[in-house]
């Protein structure tokens, strides 16, 4: 089992990052990593007023020049929207705000007189938005939220920054979304946390190379039935699935697939994103790809 010789940790984009490397990261490399994360945050964070997505939300319908790194991220959303009949969408920002998950962390949902959640469908990513290599055209106002794939994509980008600085061997961990590269000493072992009891694991996977991303509704949650995995078709949090994990070549694919697994037939998601998966449903059943390297405790 590989043991990192050096670890750099910091908080960014609302989660904890750790980067394990054989040698301590030079200051210049760590600075380059932080700058890459900051640039991503300036473009894609709906939690800051000066970001590109906030500017788009304020300006309403229209055509916008995309951030330079947008292509792969939005391609993955296209794939997810097709696989989930529109349930996964980057246009769920307003729906999340309505549930209270806004830039000020109000965490108080809009409710009707009877106390029921007031929700509304997000604009359909497949019809209300058009894209070419450099620009995005929105037919109606929308707040972009890349919560389903942004963090995974950023993990890939950080892994790329490390590789470009000659740090070929590394583990990048952003709050449990992992990318492993060049581990010579053997695979990384990763426990899959049970969202119903976080002292327990539902399985252990081995990751020799590539990425593992998980998504669950237990922690980024702020009340009964109130969490961040929202069905764009209704604007309401989903309830059928408690947790998903996806293993793939890139953290972007694994992260977006992990969200898509909340809404679509797992084998379809596996096919579209070329991932292996574990899905824990609310009824307590567990489903997993037999092609996974590891064990499930079922």
């Amino acid at each position, binding site marked *: 089992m590989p043991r990192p010789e050096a670890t750099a940790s910091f908080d960014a984009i609302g989660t904890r990052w750790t980067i394990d490397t054989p040698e301590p990261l030079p200051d210049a490399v760590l600075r380059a990593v932080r700058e890459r994360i900051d640039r991503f945050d300036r473009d894609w964070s709906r939690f800051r007023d000066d970001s590109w997505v906030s500017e788009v939300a304020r300006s309403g319908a229209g055509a916008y020049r995309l951030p330079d790194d947008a292509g792969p991220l939005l391609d993955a959303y296209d794939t997810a929207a097709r696989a989930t009949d529109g349930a996964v969408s980057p246009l769920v920002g307003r729906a999340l705000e309505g549930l209270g998950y806004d830039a000020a962390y109000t*965490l108080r949902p809009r409710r009707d007189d009877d106390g029921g959640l007031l929700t509304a469908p997000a604009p359909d990513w497949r019809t209300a938005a058009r894209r070419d290599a450099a620009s995005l055209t929105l037919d109606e106002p929308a707040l972009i939220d890349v919560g389903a794939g942004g963090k995974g994509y950023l993990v890939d980008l950080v892994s790329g920054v490390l590789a470009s600085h000659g740090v070929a061997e590394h583990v990048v961990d952003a709050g449990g979304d992992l990318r492993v590269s060049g581990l010579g000493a053997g695979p990384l072992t990763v426990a899959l946390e049970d969202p119903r*009891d976080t002292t327990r*694991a539902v399985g252990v996977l081995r990751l020799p190379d590539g990425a593992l991303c998980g998504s669950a509704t237990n922690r*980024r949650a702020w009340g009964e039935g109130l969490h961040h995995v929202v069905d764009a078709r209704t604007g309401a949090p989903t309830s059928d699935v408690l947790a998903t994990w996806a293993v793939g070549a890139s953290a972007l694919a694994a992260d977006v697939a992990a969200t898509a697994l909340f809404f679509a037939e797992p*084998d379809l998601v596996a096919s579209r994103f070329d991932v292996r998966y574990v899905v824990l449903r609310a009824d307590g059943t567990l489903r997993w790809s037999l092609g996974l390297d590891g064990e*499930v*405790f079922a």
Partner: protein
Amino acid sequence: MAHTTRRRTLGLMSGLSVLVALAACGDADAATQDDAQSSGSTQSDAGSGSTADETAGAGTDGTAGSATDGFADGTYTAEGSYSTPGGEESISVELSVADGVVTDVTVTPEASGGNAARFQDEFASGISDEVVGQELAGLSVDKVSGSSLTGDGFNAALDQIRADAAA
């Protein structure tokens, strides 16, 4: 073959019945024929007269299969075949049963190549009715993956609304 070895490592750790789902053609976009039927089965150890059809199936919904209740201990193998535009393809499934419980599942794709081989390799899945789980503290692992840890701002806001609710 490497993938067989990997699958053998995905053992089942407890005494629960387990469904085995084989989706021979998992990609709904693929123009392959989804029909699949078991074409024969063998039972290598002495046991009940149940056919392997009861433990392994291939279907269009990816969830075909049934529980193993009533199976005698032993190793069961099943051969299945299905038609694809590329011709007849087959798949082999081996189940080990101890105390009425599946203890090991090995899926061996026998496809000759192309999409069929890929689908067989990638789209076999297991289902369990219940998670047994293990204590995290008792596991020797490098990392834990679950829902993302939340940042200070979110946590502070959550503490505030809890405090308001308690007031």
